[in-house]
């Protein structure tokens, strides 16, 4: 296996103690609970997949939990959100229930998208999707930012319900797509409040980012060519992500300019469930899993006296139970009625 050159990132400077002080115990424990929900959701869903209860593609967010949890915590649900096919976590964070999401994975009537979308296409009132084509969501997220500006600038629409920014997640692989270039050019040209977040987990399926993207760090190198501000966060560290997202969000509210963020992160699983990840050595995987975002957050909260190891395990158990109940719900839910097959092809 090829040895990869380490990249010198300029991480957004932050202090966990400051974030702990600012957010306080209750909010922080809530965030940890959400991360545990995501982790348990992925573990149980993966098990159900292996039992043949779930079909199709299945991309686990395990290892990346801190990123989107911190982003929603920093900016609130009421923005426009879009992401890749690795969309389970963001849907949970934006308010979709474990029941509806597991029912969707099981292809049931009570599913988040009535059993039509599956693992790659989760939605909420604010989540424009899980998108299945690499980079396909980037123009969409840009369009949501366009709407934000349009509602502000067209006189007849003043006072219409609006939000601050559109947050568009993508993987490192998407940076090679034309949609990335065209969208960032338009967003910068038109001052669209779109936050582009590259979750760089190093692998575009089985191709290392070194073999796909011509520059590194990605955001720091690419953003200047679009006249944009860039940031790099440590995606395994909730506190760094939170501090960074909060800063970028406040900056965008002032400037109404797009920003490009790279979050350096590790996925603990293969690209999808059918990928044994043979391109990554055992040592590499072990070393990346040593920086588990859940453990990093727990250790920080433990040091701050907010949580004991016992309480952490109890919290984990509680989330596991929530997910197990959701698995049961999904399993027992009825299949979609075949008479509904042709419904909703067109909107009324």
């Amino acid at each position: 296996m090829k040895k990869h050159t380490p990249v010198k990132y300029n991480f957004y400077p932050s202090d966990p103690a400051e974030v702990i002080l600012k957010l306080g115990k209750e909010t922080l424990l809530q965030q940890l609970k959400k991360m545990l929900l995501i982790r348990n959701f992925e573990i149980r869903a993966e098990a159900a997949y292996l039992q043949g209860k779930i079909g199709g593609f299945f991309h686990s967010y395990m290892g990346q939990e801190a990123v989107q949890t911190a982003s929603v915590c920093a900016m609130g649900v009421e923005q426009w959100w879009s992401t890749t096919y690795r969309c389970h976590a963001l849907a949970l964070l934006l308010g979709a229930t474990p029941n509806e999401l597991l029912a969707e994975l099981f292809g049931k009537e009570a599913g988040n998208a009535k059993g039509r979308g599956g693992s790659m296409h989760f939605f909420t009132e604010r989540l424009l999707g899980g998108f299945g084509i690499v980079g396909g969501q980037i123009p969409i997220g840009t369009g949501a930012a366009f709407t934000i500006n349009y509602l502000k600038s067209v006189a007849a629409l003043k006072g219409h319900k609006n939000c601050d920014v559109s947050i568009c997640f993508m993987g490192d692989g998407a940076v090679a797509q034309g949609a990335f270039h065209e969208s960032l050019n338009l967003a910068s040209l038109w001052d669209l409040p779109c936050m582009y977040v590259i979750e760089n987990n190093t692998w575009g399926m089985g191709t290392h980012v070194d073999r796909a993207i011509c520059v590194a760090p990605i955001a720091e190198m690419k953003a200047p060519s679009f006249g944009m501000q860039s940031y790099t966060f440590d995606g395994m560290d909730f506190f760094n992500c939170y501090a960074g997202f909060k800063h970028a969000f406040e900056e965008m509210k002032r400037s109404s300019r797009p920003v490009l963020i790279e979050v350096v992160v590790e996925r603990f699983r293969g690209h999808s469930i059918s990928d044994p990840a043979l391109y990554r050595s055992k040592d590499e995987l072990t070393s990346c899993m040593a920086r588990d975002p859940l453990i990093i957050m727990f250790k920080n909260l433990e040091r701050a006296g907010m949580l004991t190891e016992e309480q952490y395990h109890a919290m984990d158990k509680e989330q596991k139970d929530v997910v197990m109940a959701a698995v049961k719900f999904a399993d027992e839910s009825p299949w979609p009625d075949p008479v509904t097959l042709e419904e909703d092809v067109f909107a009324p």
Partner: protein
Amino acid sequence: MQLVEMREAIRQAIDEEMQRDPTVFVMGEEVAEYNGAYKVTKGMLEKWGEERIIDTPIAELGFAGLAVGAAMTGLRPIVEFMSFNFSFVAIDQIVSNAIKMHYMSGGRFSVPIVFRGPNGAAAQVSSQHSHCVEALYGNLPGLIILAPSNPYDAKGLLKSAIRNNNPVLFLECELSYNDKMQIPTEEYLVPIGKARVAREGKHVTLVSHSRMVQLCNLAAEELAKRGITVELIDLRSVKPLDIATIAASVKKTHRCVLVEEGHLFAGICAEVGFQIIEHCFDDLDAPLARVCQRETPMPYSKTLEKQTMPTKERIIAAIEHVLA
């Protein structure tokens, strides 16, 4: 009544709908300061301002996708493609996002968007600027495809398209923008999914859409002099297809010829013809015949271009064949 050109009929439709609904806006290459490559949006920048008449860079994937995102979040974009050939640069956004979104999201997000612009051949613009896209896109459930043949239908259908909550391809023709017609001064709509009997006749049904309807009309006039009366059906909506109107006519004439500007293989005639067989097999007194663009990319030379396209002569020959 008012005498208007096709481009003016389209402009009026957009203008009236922009007046009616502030979420309607126009986006595309050269639509604002240049007044539109074919002057459809002439004067609109001055009237509506740069917030609602928006020039884009040459980035079809980017701006078409951006407009889909805008449609998902509450706006009603009208995206002009300078030519529908350029929609291929944006095809992933049209196919994977616009067309599938409502179904795939369990009905949560709709995509009320109109993609409009000239489709098909112009005058000697060669292979990459002459494609008819309706058969390519027609294969995909979730999309409405409109292809009016005259200014009256264009205005009424476009207004219906802008009000519709689904993605619509609105196919115009570069060679028809100057076509003039008397249309009502007062507001009207033309419903989506309703074909028009453009000419009544009893010997043969002729089915077509868009600019080819005019060619069919010329063929019908010539045949009328020889005592052959042609019932001409103008599809107006390619999809949804008004098979009821077509079938009613075929049941009356028992013979049918189909004409389209696009290619033969898996074309619109292939689909409509098959549906006629499904609905009217026992009523047919002769096999169906079709006149389409031949199976070549569009050549540049005037002589070759004429050869590959449907002509009045080829239509007449096909009709004579099914009547023989």
